[in-house]
């Protein structure tokens, strides 16, 4: 397949872009023993130069190695941690530059489901109250109506009315995850950032939830940023998928294209490693060799070169640039240089 030149590709605004993340960087300083005075500061480069666009009504799946910065990307977009660099353009303004007041409005539109469902629930609050909270914050309905809404949403995510009065520790992992989802859904957001929203659900409920999400999306024109490890789930829900590795976005493509023709060696390895719930259908796995690199001192050049089966000399020194295969499919890998 001939590769288009990266330089002169113009992406037509076929769809209305809703959220645009540009060159996002987030470095965490590494806490040192405070007696070591003179050492240089080191950073965990959790997110390094990530850009992508979320269009209206679409789902952007974010996959990648554990610890590669997916959650951090999600949290940073909402400015839950301060970004080191970069922009997140929503409604024409940079979220990172907003005043607290404006930020709060944006946060009504962009909701987040946290990866860790238990710790994201206040242990002292009954679930009902926790769920009502966003309604109160944004002045929706009166006390009675709010209770109604909450009970409704509990039901929607497959929980019972009784659960309204329970405390978080009385729930199972999957139930908590659904509570997190309910909390994010309750405000009718425009964008939903979901960090592993179904990982703790059994497939039957998972499918209910995924169906629900799809339904909501089509009805309300929602956009999702969907972070997950479950390739099956991602495939099912996403329109486009970004693959991250060690803080960088290495490949981005429409779902079908990614699954049928993954370009980046990491993506290929990833797809090959998915376990299949059928016996005897073991696939040929691309086994990644080499040590896992650390985000504290990522490898020079292409961050994947230490484990890449196709590694070349230049990979070790040169950072690969983004190259477009089609308008929507691009990859950062030297293999596809002309």
């Amino acid at each position: 397949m001939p590769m288009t030149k990266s330089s002169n590709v113009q992406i037509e605004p076929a769809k209305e872009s809703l959220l645009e993340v540009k060159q996002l960087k987030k470095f965490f300083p590494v806490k040192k023993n405070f007696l070591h005075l003179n050492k240089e500061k080191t950073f965990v480069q959790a997110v390094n130069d990530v850009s992508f666009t979320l269009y209206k009504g679409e789902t952007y799946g974010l996959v990648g190695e554990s610890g590669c910065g997916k959650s951090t990307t999600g949290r940073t977009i909402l400015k839950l941690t301060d970004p080191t660099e970069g922009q997140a353009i929503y409604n024409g303004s940079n979220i990172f530059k907003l005043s607290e007041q404006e930020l709060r409005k944006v946060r009504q539109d962009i909701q987040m489901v946290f990866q860790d469902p238990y710790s994201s629930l206040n242990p002292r609050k009954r679930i009902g109250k926790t769920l009502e909270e966003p309604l109160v914050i944004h002045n929706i309905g009166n006390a009675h109506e709010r209770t109604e809404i909450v009970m409704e949403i509990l039901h929607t995510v497959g929980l019972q009315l009784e659960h309204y009065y329970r405390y978080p520790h009385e729930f199972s992992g999957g139930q908590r995850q659904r509570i997190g989802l309910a909390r994010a859904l309750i405000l009718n957001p425009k964008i939903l950032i979901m960090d592993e929203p179904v990982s703790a659900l059994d497939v039957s409920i998972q499918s209910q939830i995924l169906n629900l999400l799809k339904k909501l999306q089509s009805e309300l024109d929602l956009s999702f940023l969907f972070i997950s490890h479950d390739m099956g789930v991602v495939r099912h829900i996403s329109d486009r998928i970004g693959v991250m590795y060690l803080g960088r976005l290495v490949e981005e493509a429409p779902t079908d294209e990614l699954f049928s023709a993954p370009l980046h060696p990491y993506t290929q390895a990833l797809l090959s490693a998915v376990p299949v719930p059928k016996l005897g259908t073991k696939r040929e796995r691309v086994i990644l060799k080499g040590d896992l690199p650390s985000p504290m001192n990522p490898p020079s050049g292409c961050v994947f070169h230490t484990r890449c089966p196709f590694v070349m000399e230049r990979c070790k020194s040169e950072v690969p640039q983004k190259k477009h295969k089609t308008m929507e499919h691009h990859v950062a890998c030297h293999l596809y240089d002309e």
Partner: protein
Amino acid sequence: MEGIGSTLTLSQARKKLKKEQNELLKKRFLSNYSMMIGISILAFLVLLSLVGPLVVGYSPYEMVVNNRLQAPHAEHILGTDNFGRDLLTRIIYGARASIGVGFSIAIITSIVGLAVGLYASFYKSLDQILMRICDGLMAIPGVLLAIALMAALGPKVENVIIALSIVFTPYVARIVRSAALVVREQTYIEAMKSQGASSTRIIWLHVAPNVISPLIVQATFIFADSIITEAALSFLGAGIPAPAPSWGNILYDGKLTIFNAWWMTVFPGLLIIIAVIGLNSLGDGLRDLMDPHYKKVKKRRAKAKA
């Protein structure tokens, strides 16, 4: 999933559930022994200070010097003080002053200290300022502050309360801050932020409930401490104006005669302890009411008996 059961049954179920929860709330409240004990003790004390004066046969100032320091006997149930005044009467009249002072100070310091501690834990720049103010306030001797305030504003109970509140607030603030520093790093606080909750809301509705239990402990301590300290201040002319009784100044009078009149220290001391127990039980009960893990222990006991 999409089939949200028939709306009718659903709303019925909701109603039933709400009723059930209301009953549970009542039950929870009533089965909260600490709280009940606390409320009864405090109610008793409040009643004592309100109705007591109408019942006793003496005036708190009425003195027969010749009867000074009589041990408890029929005529003076709790004995007499060093001026021959009826101790019971003075203790009853003193209740109003002491509980009033103790309560007001405990409440004021709790509220102000809570606010200061929470905001300090939340905003780094404020932290520097507020905590340094606290350091300074803690360093200024309370007695001096009290004398100065009394001189400036006159010896009134309100001023005692102001002075002692200033003295005690930093303690509360620091305790609250320390607990809040941990709470504010929790993921659920981040979750609230992501929901667009204002800082005020997060601080008061989400962080505050999580720091309440150390606050309660500190507040009870302050309650007791201020009852006693008030009396120490009245030595400097900064307390409840003499010869009005308060538990604290009865105690201090008792200290001078501690070698031969135990009743002058024991009775007011006992009342202070009772009041502390009352307030504390109330606090514990409040705490338990908010503790998601607590009720069950009760349940088990109930069951074990059955």
